[in-house]
């Protein structure tokens, strides 16, 4: 966005502090515009009253993200990519997490195709209160046959609501796909130096977003993007080519760095979302594990550095899990609190016989332990000790988790050990060395739990209730 202080945004607001947006003042609202937690359309007078129209229009222009936002798909499964305003996440946050697309191809047997699509759309991993999931299907035309391609696209649409990328350099093939799928707003892949006129015409005719592909040629890439945008095709995605190995990979990284820096610095002609195709790793490696590993490595690089959408092939869990987590890593809002409030939390419906567990107030640790317990139906008391948001192992090493801290945490929470029949505190396995100190400090018995809370349910079976 072109402005970066609430004061600059405030000038365009009514200044009446009417409160219709739910904020106490226009200045408070303005600060939300700058941190992008609210939008100009959330100011009701600004959009409803004619006299503010000009201000509203100006404000919207000023607030528009530097990198254009492109929507792929429709309805609940639609995915936005791009929309970033910063080069480093600590400067604000990255918006619109990298969309992860996995391929199918038009020479697959129908049963295999359906099975693969289902695997992609069903993959899920629970993580801090929610599921990490994949996003899209990329349909590759291997046969170059428009009919086959259309049939494959149709089958994918029947199987999933995931948005699609239609992949071919042959305009007739893309057209066949669009005739089946245009209403689902797929992303076209791709216009290149040879076919760009026809692909541009398809993007216009069917009103769908389109990728421009110019491997390691940023002048051509920019030229195509500019030409498309000037002709009304604003939903453009850039593919500068993903060379998977050697100097080519280094060049690819630098192309991504250059494109994004230019875009954030205000070069509108290149300020579009970027696509990486880690799939190309499969062209460099023969065995599946090496290819999956290298594909994941390439995907990780471009998740960290500015890839907004990616196409991959491996759907092995050992590839998908790190890909999902590195994406979550980069797109977690760094402004969100690191900690939960120190307290004794009730998990399930604990009674006087339920265990009293200890963990830290680092949000990730707390939520991991909490989900391990609640999803396995363990009723207990879980104490989050104030360790300044540091995890168990590091907090024991760094002195943020001590016997005194544990005593204080229980006291501050007003927890009455007397109400427990067993008078036992269960420490995390990684805090085992505190056992003696905690016994001395609290006068309670101390048991040592497993090093990983995922093993708590099994540990409970073996060790709970404690032997008298």
């Amino acid at each position, binding site marked *: 966005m072109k402005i970066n202080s609430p004061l600059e945004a405030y000038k365009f607001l009514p200044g009446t502090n009417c409160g219709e947006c739910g904020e106490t003042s226009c200045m408070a609202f303005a600060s939300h515009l700058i941190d992008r937690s609210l939008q100009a359309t959330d100011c009701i007078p600004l959009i409803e009253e004619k006299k503010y129209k000009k201000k509203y229009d100006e404000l919207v222009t000023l607030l528009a993200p530097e990198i254009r936002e492109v929507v792929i798909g429709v309805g609940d499964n639609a995915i936005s990519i791009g929309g970033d305003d910063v080069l480093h996440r600590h400067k604000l946050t990255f918006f619109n997490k990298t969309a992860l697309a996995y391929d199918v191809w038009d020479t697959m047997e129908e049963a295999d195709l359906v099975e693969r699509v289902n695997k992609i759309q069903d993959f899920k991993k629970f993580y801090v209160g929610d599921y990490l999931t994949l996003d899209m299907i990329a349909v590759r035309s291997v046969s170059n046959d428009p009919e086959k391609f259309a049939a494959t696209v149709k089958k994918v649409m029947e199987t999933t609501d995931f948005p699609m990328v239609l992949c071919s350099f042959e305009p007739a093939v893309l057209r066949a796909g669009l005739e089946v799928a245009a209403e689902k707003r797929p992303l076209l892949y791709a216009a290149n130096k040879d076919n760009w006129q026809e692909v541009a015409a398809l993007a216009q005719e069917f009103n769908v977003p389109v990728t421009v592909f110019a491997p390691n040629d940023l002048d051509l890439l920019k030229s195509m993007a500019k030409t498309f945008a000037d002709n009304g095709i604003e939903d453009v995605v850039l593919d500068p080519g993903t060379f998977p190995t050697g100097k080519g990979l280094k060049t690819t990284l630098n192309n991504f760095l250059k494109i994004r820096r230019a875009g954030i610095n205000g070069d509108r002609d290149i300020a579009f979302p970027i696509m990486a195709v880690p799939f190309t790793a499969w*062209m460099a490696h023969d065995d599946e594990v090496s290819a999956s590993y290298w594909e994941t490595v390439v995907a990780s690089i471009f998740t960290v550095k500015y890839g907004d959408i990616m196409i991959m092939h491996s759907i092995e869990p050992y590839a998908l899990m790190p890909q999902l987590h590195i994406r979550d890593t980069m797109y977690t809002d760094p402004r969100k609190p690191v900690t939960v409030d120190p307290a004794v939390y009730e998990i399930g419906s604990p009674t006087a016989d339920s265990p009293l567990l200890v963990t830290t107030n680092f949000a990730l640790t707390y939520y991991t332990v909490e989900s391990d317990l609640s999803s396995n139906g363990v009723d207990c008391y879980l104490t989050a000790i104030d360790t300044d948001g540091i995890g168990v192992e590091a907090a024991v090493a760094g002195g943020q988790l001590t016997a005194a801290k544990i005593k204080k945490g229980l006291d501050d929470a007003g927890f009455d050990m007397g109400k427990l029949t067993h008078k036992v505190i269960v420490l995390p396995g990684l805090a085992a060395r505190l056992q003696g100190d905690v016994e001395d400090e609290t006068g309670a018995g101390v048991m040592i739990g497993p090093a990983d809370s995922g093993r708590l349910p099994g540990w409970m079976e073996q060790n709970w209730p404690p032997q008298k």
Partner: protein
Amino acid sequence: MSNKMKLSGLTDILKDLDVQSLEGVTIEGDIELDISGGGGLNPAMAYALGHEAAQISMHVANIARMLGYPVDQLFAASMGGVPQQAPVAGASRIPELLPAKFDVSKMSEWATPIQEVTLGATSADGGSRKNTVTLGGENALPYYFDAEMPHRNYVTMDVFDMPISMAKSVKENYGDVINDPADWAKKVVKDFNADMVTIHLISTDPLIDDTPAREAAKVVEDVLQAVKVPIVIGGSGNPKKDPEVLEKAAEVAEGERVLLASASLNLDYERVAKAATDHGHAVLSWTQLEINAQKELNRKLMKQCNVPRDSIVMDPTTAALGYGLDYAYTNMERIRLAGLMGDDELTFPMSSGTTNAWGARESWMKESPLKQDSDWGPREYRGPIWEIVTGLTLSLAGNDMFMMMHPTSVQVLKEITQTLYGSIEAEEIDITKWIGAEV
């Protein structure tokens, strides 16, 4: 058809449309629709208004088309859409590409180089190492086009002075050497291509074996005998015992320019710093995910303990993928950016305890403890990639040296970081054929 239709002719066209009922709609001279609904539109009304407005605009567009204006292009441009009648293929082709030259400037703010720190000493410098390792020296974020990176990334592999609990897929590589730190060190250098070795003296912890510092120092001597690469010496992490352990280790390693791990704010860092300066070693400045604490400790090491700038490496803490890597990444990236922009309390090379990735359950647990999860697949493939992605991510934040455990992780991390560094050649691949690739 008249070429002379005037705006006044609009009225005649509009007559045919049922717009009279639309109160509050007026058309001004500049063809601007003025919709003053007052108290808000209900959806049905809004739809009706929208429909009528669209009808009007179609007629106005027809007028414009008669006047020879390229209406269709305008529509496409302003609405991202196309006119109702699809153009015959080729009819509306964009004739040619607009010329464009891509250009981007280098970062002028990155004006301060990162300090170079050399570890290990050869016989020329009074040591017995075959080679040295130099970290740091960057003038830009790693692998960036703004400036060549002077030194590649290095991996130091972990060796322990006693058997420890390890993930199964890590342990199976070390079964034969687990009771002998010297053999263990040899193995990681010879078989696993480690650039350096870290000897962790964990048995010195009073809560473990309480091995006396003097005895632990003998293990350091054994390791220095066994390998000729530079080494890192780690304590047990016990803040009371570590200064003494590191003092004795520093003494026996005199002349070898080891890295002492570590000085931190929660132990007697002065003793660790003095052990380093007295015997010509470098010191690892370890803080926990807090840039200001890192500044404070570095400042104390420099000002209060007189550690030379070329003898400080930072460990700002590594949290594993899925367990706080976002904090670790951003903390390192901020530290490196601050250094490049001139904060001389942060212009030091960085080290990562990448081995921490093995604490993540995804790397070692047989299956997910949560029933709702999809199958996690074989853990022997999950573990190494967890360590690789954790390290790779931090390499992009500016980390120079990686402390690691699994041979596959080390091999892949070295290959990827050296690829990005630019020293790995590979056969060029024709990626324009990727769509049709048979895989």
